[in-house]
């Protein structure tokens, strides 16, 4: 009996991933806990550890394969008793010939070229180069009703994640998928009406092939594209902008950092913005809310997501319950999260969730911008550069360090007056940071 090694689900929402790297090859012996592969999901790269011990019998999904479905068989482990010696076959067994190749018979894959060669050691390279791998772990379990609904909707069951017992696809999954996924077999002609926007190829738009390089879409890029498109299209959003004088904040930061120097902690302006947002959200709880069809979710904590730019994308790790944390702790956490985000080593729970986001492009000299809402959050704060600007004080021209911030609000939950209330709570906290501890 060989043991199937399955594509793991690294987060509750993960449906598929890229098999980025194998750390083992057929013939290697592994024990529980050994890292055997790296999986890249839409958000992060994670290591897969062996659960059982034994010898790797076959690697079924080649490195770099994209779109590997959760629970697909990615490798096989030789089980106990499978040792080197083949099981004894009685000489007088009438069907001795068939004995060495039981797997080939059992494999449901109808394509001859996809079936493992009928040799005792199956060839490790399955002969597929395109799309999702069709291994024998790919039999789709679905309820009869789910099958019929999928057929009626023209949905490919292979693209649906099952939420029923043992991952079986049930009616609810098809209904959920119908809300999202485009039908694979759209009847020609009828597609245009309500379907997703038809995208023309670059060639059709006058950019000849060969005049550019094509970088394949990785999981993160696909996720950013999907989430931002959904949000910008579906969330009725509007921006509110306010100027904040931060001379007091900069002075306070210098003092704090002098105090913390011996601990090796350095608080950034962004850390102070995160803390101030958390405090302001507690003072204006209506802004710390999410719209859901069942009602407005009023979050108990201010879990602040901070946008971290990566080489090819971005991710938003979260400072949980930031209102309960001191600046030093926030500084330590943001530094750690940002570093691990860049290494793609964040755990799913470290970047999923969050009730409010902060995005800062001040370091690039951006004066002001309006971010796209990170659903299901009710608002996101875009922080611009802090720069010396002329201001009017007591009827006279003066110089102050001013930072422009813009709050993008989801109007379904954060109305204009609520957003304004939040910003007027935030402004004094940043202009006079001492008030954060009052």
């Amino acid at each position, binding site marked *: 009996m060989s043991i199937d090694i399955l594509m793991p689900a690294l987060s509750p929402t993960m449906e598929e991933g890229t098999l980025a790297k194998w750390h083992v090859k057929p013939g290697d012996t592994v024990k529980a806990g050994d890292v055997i592969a790296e999986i890249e999901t839409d958000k992060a790269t994670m290591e897969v550890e062996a659960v059982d011990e034994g010898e790797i019998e076959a690697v079924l999904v080649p490195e770099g394969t994209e779109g590997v479905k959760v629970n697909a068989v990615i490798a096989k482990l030789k089980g106990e008793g499978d040792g080197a010696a083949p099981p004894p076959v009685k000489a007088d067994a009438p069907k001795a010939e068939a004995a060495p190749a039981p797997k080939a018979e059992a494999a449901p894959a109808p394509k001859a070229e996809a079936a493992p060669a009928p040799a005792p050691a199956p060839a490790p390279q399955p002969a597929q180069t395109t799309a999702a791998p069709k291994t024998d772990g790919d039999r789709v379990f679905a309820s*009869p009703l789910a099958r019929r609904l999928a057929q009626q909707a023209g949905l490919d069951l292979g693209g649906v994640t099952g939420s029923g017992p043992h991952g079986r696809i049930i009616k*609810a*999954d098809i209904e959920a998928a119908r809300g999202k996924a485009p039908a694979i077999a759209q009847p020609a002609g009828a597609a245009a009406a309500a379907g997703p926007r038809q995208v023309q190829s670059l060639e059709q738009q006058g950019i000849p092939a060969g005049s550019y390089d094509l970088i394949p879409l990785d999981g993160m890029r696909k996720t950013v594209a999907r989430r931002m498109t959904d949000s910008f299209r579906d969330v009725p959003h509007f921006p509110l902008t306010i100027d904040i004088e931060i001379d007091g904040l900069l002075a306070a930061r210098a003092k704090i950092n002098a105090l913390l120097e011996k601990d090796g902690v350095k608080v950034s302006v962004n850390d102070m913005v995160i803390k101030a947002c958390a405090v302001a959200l507690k003072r204006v709880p209506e802004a710390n809310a999410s719209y859901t069809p069942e009602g407005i979710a009023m979050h108990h904590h201010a879990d602040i997501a901070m946008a971290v730019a990566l080489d090819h994308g971005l991710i938003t790790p979260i400072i949980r319950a930031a209102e309960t944390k001191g600046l030093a702790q926030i500084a330590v956490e943001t530094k750690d999260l940002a570093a691990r985000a860049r290494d793609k080593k964040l755990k799913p729970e470290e970047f999923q969730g969050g009730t409010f986001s902060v995005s800062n492009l001040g370091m690039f000299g951006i004066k002001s911008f309006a971010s796209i809402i990170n659903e299901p959050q009710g608002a996101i704060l875009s922080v611009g550069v802090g720069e010396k600007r002329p201001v009017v004080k007591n009827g006279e021209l003066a110089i102050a360090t001013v930072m422009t911030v813009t709050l993008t609000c989801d109007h379904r939950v954060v109305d204009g007056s609520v957003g304004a209330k939040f910003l007027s709570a935030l402004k004094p906290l940043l202009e006079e940071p001492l008030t954060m501890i009052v």
Partner: protein
Amino acid sequence: MDFDVIVIGAGPGGYVTAIRASQLGLKTAIIERENLGGVCLNWGCIPTKALLKSGELYEQLDHLSDYGLAITGRSYDFTKVIERSRGVAKQLSSGVAFLMKKHKIEVIEGSAKLEKAAPAPKVVVALKAGGSRTLTAKHVILATGARARTIPAVGLVPDGERIWTYREAMVPKTAPKSMIVIGSGAIGIEFASFYRALGAEVTVIEALDRILPVEDEEVSKAAQKAFEKRGLKFRVAAKVSKLSKSKTGVSVALEAKGKAETLEAEVAIVAVGIDGNVEDMGLEALGLKIDRGHVVIDRHGVTNVPGLYAIGDVAGPPWLAHKASHEGVHCIEHIAGLKDSGLTAPIPGCTYANPQVASVGLTEAAAKAAGIEVKAGRFPFRVNGKAIAAGETEGFVKTVFDAKTGALIGAHMIGAEVTEMIQGFAIAMTLEATEEDLFETVFAHPTLSEAMHEASLDAYGRVLHI
């Protein structure tokens, strides 16, 4: 923290929840103010089935000649009938005690009150043996059940003597000669059926326009006919204006179809519904959301009070033991962090009168009202071989399919043994079967269940034996 979980109420919801909690490795206590097993085992489902069996056998004696058998004279010992029913209840209640012990669940006898605390409310138990105990747990589950609804404005209040609820109706000293049953749900119909079998003159009053109003209309109609054949009388669309006592009995003033009428009988049974047991537990002070006498919960029994859950009758209809147990298991698995099966299992309902009534899912009318295009099929037992051989040809099976998807969305039956057959359709619906799966299922011959196959085929014009 004394426990991981405290379950309040040891009915079929509570004790099953406690067993599952223990299976999941949670340190569990269960609090019961009266009997382990709750109303179901002690005053409901189980003892009534014992009574009904006596009634059914007695009734059958009248029909022995149909089967070529002969007996002379028949009689019953009412005290023994009641005693048998109590013995059955007692046996099962001590069975629950054994199960609690086996699963190392601490049973605390007393009445619980809740007090505000974190992470879950504190439980103060006024012990049956005297004194009190304060317990803390990470999770507290209310499984306090429900009781018969009373309507004092028109005198629908039990007095324990002539005006009964299910409870008094279970243990009278003598069999009444005449009886008025107010309410034609499962409880009312079962008692009416039992006492009629023993020879009482029974009239059932129903406020809605048909008896067993939660059932499919065709079933209600057939049931009324079948019961009337046995001598039960009905007043439907009848409004009780006053129930009052006299020295010798009760009288009920009612108005049916614009006509006023007064009925007299020895006793009356009030079976007009159920109210959740939500009082005297300090639930108001916790700010627990309660809607029309029932705690408001989500799919997993979660209430609006942190650490407090509710399951079963106290959390709303249908008021059925198996619904309570199922909710309890869902709730505790959610607490233990297990994955939700994702299935929305329909809850079957059974009435153990003679003939029996059983159903699961939507009635044809409810499906149509929900905007579903329906295909319905029927098959009568009078042409089913096994039914004819057994002399049980009353009743039929009805299926309701979604015409667009072929999903089985409802099944309704009346006849012998249908309460045992309904599970077949319940499994089919839980597994999201379509008509094809039912067509393809091989039904053993000869069985009453073949009528289920035929009723499915009939919905698609493919019935074989009509």
